[in-house]
């Protein structure tokens, strides 16, 4: 299990960047060991919340963990303060996906229309 865990450490640059965001422009340096410890803490957090969420899903006789399970798990584990901003972020994320999907659909639709017009032109040229 510990081999698996070592393979699943996060990219150093990302951990460092996130930690620096919290240090808010101060001149503090971060030791390598601190970064490694933070990466491990993050991994434990993910497992902790997801296993709690999975228990909620299982209790409700569902096979798939949903965002509601995640929010409930955060609440149970005293991370309530994260819930509201996460809900907003999720709304924005889903809206982005919706817009992207719509754009792709429109693009493929207009491609089909263009092809039809070309066919008409070819006939006329003949």
């Amino acid at each position, binding site marked *: 299990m510990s081999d698996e865990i070592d393979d699943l450490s996060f990219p150093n640059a990302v951990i460092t960047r996130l*930690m620096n965001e919290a240090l808010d422009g101060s001149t503090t340096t971060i*030791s390598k*060991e601190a970064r490694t410890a933070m990466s491990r803490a993050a991994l434990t957090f993910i497992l902790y919340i*997801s296993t709690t969420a999975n228990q909620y899903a299982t209790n409700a006789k569902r*096979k798939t*963990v949903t965002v509601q399970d995640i929010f409930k798990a955060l609440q149970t584990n005293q991370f309530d303060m994260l819930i509201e901003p996460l809900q907003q972020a999720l709304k*924005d994320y889903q809206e982005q996906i919706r817009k992207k999907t719509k754009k792709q659909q429109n693009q493929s639709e207009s491609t089909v229309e263009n092809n039809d017009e070309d066919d008409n032109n070819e006939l006329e040229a003949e």
Partner: protein
Amino acid sequence: MTSSNDQIKSTSIRSYQLPLTKVKSIIKLDNNTRMISQDSVYVLTLATEEFIRMLTRDAHNSMKQCASKRLDRLHIFSSINTNPLYEFLDGSFD
């Protein structure tokens, strides 16, 4: 100092930083968790990013209390031992 609210709000426009696939692999370490929605992975990723910021802020305060300029893992451990919110992390670093 930016609040959790501000950090997550600005992140949602910028997008996430931790790789979603890696977060999903970690979730899968638990054999009981079979399926999880993509939205859930996304939300948990953002939550984890904010968790990292939170623990860093607390560790930073521990660091300042011992008049150091270098954030070390001892400062992280000190925060974990002081704040009951981080109790679940006990024993993860052995």
